[in-house]
């Protein structure tokens, strides 16, 4: 990835982070989209797994700092998701929107599973309901929004022609 591509990727990453703290609370849906996971996934496929793990760790700490009771849970989940996404980029790094959507869906769902288990705030039936109902819904919304943003931000995300 050249310098221009890196700058565009960083700008896209920052846009996703800003959207997470503006559009998401503005909409306030029960199954919200997660722009931080999208930003992590888009960054992870462009960097090495170690770097993706560090990015995930930092993003997780950022999200956890707004919910101090779960400090660390988001960091673990983001670290694993980032590392996994980067490790599996050969599988998912394809110019196929459906595959990208599934990539986003899976990334968000795995993040939620790790997060809610690590957070240890929800238990029993409520945890099952959260992981099997609300998390997939949220993952689906995240995937749809991710695909939409990929479509909109294609000029920023695609590598420039040599």
């Amino acid at each position, binding site marked *: 990835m050249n310098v221009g591509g890196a700058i565009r990727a960083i700008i896209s990453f920052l846009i996703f982070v800003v959207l997470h*703290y503006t559009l998401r609370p503005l909409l306030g849906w029960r199954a919200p989209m997660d722009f931080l996971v999208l930003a992590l996934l888009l960054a992870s496929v462009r960097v090495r797994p170690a770097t993706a793990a560090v990015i995930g760790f930092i993003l997780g700490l950022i999200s956890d700092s707004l919910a*101090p009771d779960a400090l660390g849970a988001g960091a*673990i989940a983001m670290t694993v998701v980032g590392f996994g996404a980067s490790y599996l980029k050969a599988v998912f790094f394809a110019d196929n929107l459906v595959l990208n959507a599934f990539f986003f869906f899976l990334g968000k769902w795995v993040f939620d599973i790790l997060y809610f288990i690590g957070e240890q705030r929800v238990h029993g039936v409520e945890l099952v309901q959260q992981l099997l109902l609300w998390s997939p819904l949220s993952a689906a919304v995240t995937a749809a929004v991710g695909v939409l943003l990929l479509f909109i931000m294609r000029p920023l995300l695609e590598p420039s022609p040599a």
Partner: protein
Amino acid sequence: MARAIRSNTRLDLIILSVCIVLSLAARALPNTMRDPVATGMRRTFLAPLVLLQERAERGRQSLLSADAKQTYLDSLSLGSMKAESLESENDRLRKLMGLGSRLRWGFIPVEALHGRGVRDETTVILSAGTRAGVTRLSPVIAPEGLVGVVDQVDPTMSHAMLWTHPDFRVSAMSPDGSAYGIAQAHLTGATGGYLLELRGVPFRSALKPGALIISSGWGGVWPRGIPVGTVLEEIKTTEGWARTYLLRPAVNPADVYSVMILRRDRVAKGLDGVWQNLAQVDATAQKIVVSGDSAARSAALAEAAARKAVLDSAARANGAPPVAPDSTRAVTPRPPPVRRAPVADTNVRRDTAPRRDTTRRDSVPARDTIPIRPGVTR
């Protein structure tokens, strides 16, 4: 090559492990240490993101509460509109109470119910009838003045003809009695509403715009002194022997909801002093205008005299003759006119005698011309 890949993979796994260990350490922090860490991050490099989130939350709250706020604003506007009408109604009721206290006795306070029919601008239903002492041809008044007259009476309600009715007439005059006439409705146009016109005013009786017109008391229906309206302007008619004036009515029938019916015995006693204040105010205003003119004239004369004295003294100092009186004649105060004694000669020929101020028949104060229905006694 394979060793480099393995080395990189090992490095990735090491870093992953470090990150996970750090995350677990953060998760395992006690609350006393967790909160300062989170707070420190929020207050430093995360502050812009926190600010963004707060604004977004606030925007969402504003969006969610927009409907409620609009409903609240609508209710408030509706309340303020009602308050305005209530204030005007209160004001009107206070005036009505003031009129009642001035009348003291012999009146029946009633509600005027406007119809929605074709003639709703000329008649109203009043919420009192014969049981309350209402009789036919009882005057209907408001604090501002004349409203109409009762033309049909039932036991519990009555029907009144407003001054806008084509058959309505009232004998009216100026408060000083210098001009009499008959007031009747004057339709200004299809959508212009009603005014009043004062017809049959003797040609020698000129009325200025703004002059108050009151009922004269002739005819027995209306007592003397009820305000009818104020003069707007003189209108030209084909009658060359009398003047006709356009009046702004004292009462707008559309605004009449609470009125008073005067009982016949109260009418017979007269309404002296009830609307006297209005007449006094009108007369006082006219006096102020006249005295203002006199004061201005006196000031001009005094200034001219002073100027003449200065010119005279200057001329005297120069040895020149004083200024000729002709040059200041126009501004020199005239001596007061000397009134001659009346001639006591009684043997005056009829053709040389000064003509008496004859009163033409058409200038005699006319009586109310409200038609009396057959079979109904006054």
